[in-house]
């Protein structure tokens, strides 16, 4: 019996998180911390750091990773399910409505002008994101070569992104194995 209220509580908490964070990803971490550590006492501050580390090193959106992990910790599989559903539902509902509204207004003249301006603004947001990813990335000749290689291959050659991602993961693993063997000697 005790598990049923917890799953509902997870659902509602993560709906709130999904509804009140803009931009997703790291923007959600402070709210997740406040709700699940300070308000509900489900997990500790250390857990939050671990969750961020795991979310970074597993595929998929950070918000989904964090919701699934916390839900599982708190109430097992059903907990994971309700937390994930909770964080997805607000976006899903809002965007479904937005997509129909947007289709209605797309041919209005001033909206087209507005989007002409917005497109240039969005590029700036991507530049900012690129900079913060660069800051989080490891530095050194090995990293710079991978950055350059991934950029050149995807920008100028007809090679798909998945192939580049897999190759870079393998290169990283090989490099780690070589380094650890060198350390042993």
């Amino acid at each position, binding site marked *: 019996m005790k598990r049923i209220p917890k799953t509902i509580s997870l659902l509602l908490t993560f709906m709130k998180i999904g509804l009140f964070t803009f931009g997703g990803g790291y923007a959600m971490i402070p709210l997740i911390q406040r709700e699940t550590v300070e308000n509900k006492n489900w997990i500790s501050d250390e857990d939050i750091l671990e969750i961020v580390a795991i979310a*970074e090193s597993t595929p998929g*959106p950070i*918000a989904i990773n964090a919701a699934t992990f916390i839900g599982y910790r708190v109430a097992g599989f059903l907990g994971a399910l309700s937390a994930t559903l909770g964080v997805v539902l607000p976006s*899903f509902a809002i965007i479904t409505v*937005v*997509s129909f509204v947007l289709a209605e207004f797309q041919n209005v003249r001033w909206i087209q002008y507005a989007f002409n301006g917005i497109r240039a603004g969005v590029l700036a947001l991507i530049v900012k994101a690129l900079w913060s990813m660069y800051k989080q990335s490891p530095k050194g000749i*090995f990293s710079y070569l991978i950055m350059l290689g991934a950029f050149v291959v995807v920008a100028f050659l007809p090679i798909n992104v998945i192939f580049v*991602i897999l190759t870079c993961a393998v290169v*990283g*693993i090989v490099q780690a194995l070589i380094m650890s063997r060198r350390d042993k000697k």
Partner: protein
Amino acid sequence: MIYLNLFLAFLKIGLFTFGGGYAMLPMIQEEVTAHDWLNQSDLIDFIAVSESTPGPFAVNIATFVGARTGGIFGSICATLGVVLPSFVIILIVAKCYAKFKSSRLVVGAMNGLKPAVVGLIAAALLSLSQTVFFPAGLSVSVLGTAQFYVSPGIFAAAVVLAFKKLHPILIILLSAVIGVITGYVLQI
């Protein structure tokens, strides 16, 4: 068939992107343009919509592309696709967390993936900026027109504001206002 395609495309996106948010952009760009679900301008417009609505970028764009191409059921399929890989992988990781954390393989793979994501986003940025700055293609004739300088102007101002940590929604609003004003003034 469109439902299956949506599900599979977003499953791929969910499975092969690390870091979330803009790190997903290169994969999303490749999938949606390859299937002709969105063109480059639509994609950029939607990034703005996603920044101004709550929730994770990946879920937002999955729902949006799904709704555009396959209605409500399409948006369910796409969203399910992008969420499923994370969900399953995290359940597995949560069970054997201690091993995962200290795994040399995971640490090594991340050392390769983090810089790769930087390069991939840079490539996405390059191709998106071609669409924004040269909507009619690269040619010398556009250089003489006033509207050619509007986008680079907004872009330069927005970069400065973004690095001054102005909220993304405010940057989008400001760009929209400048876009409307210059649009009517120059009669683009």
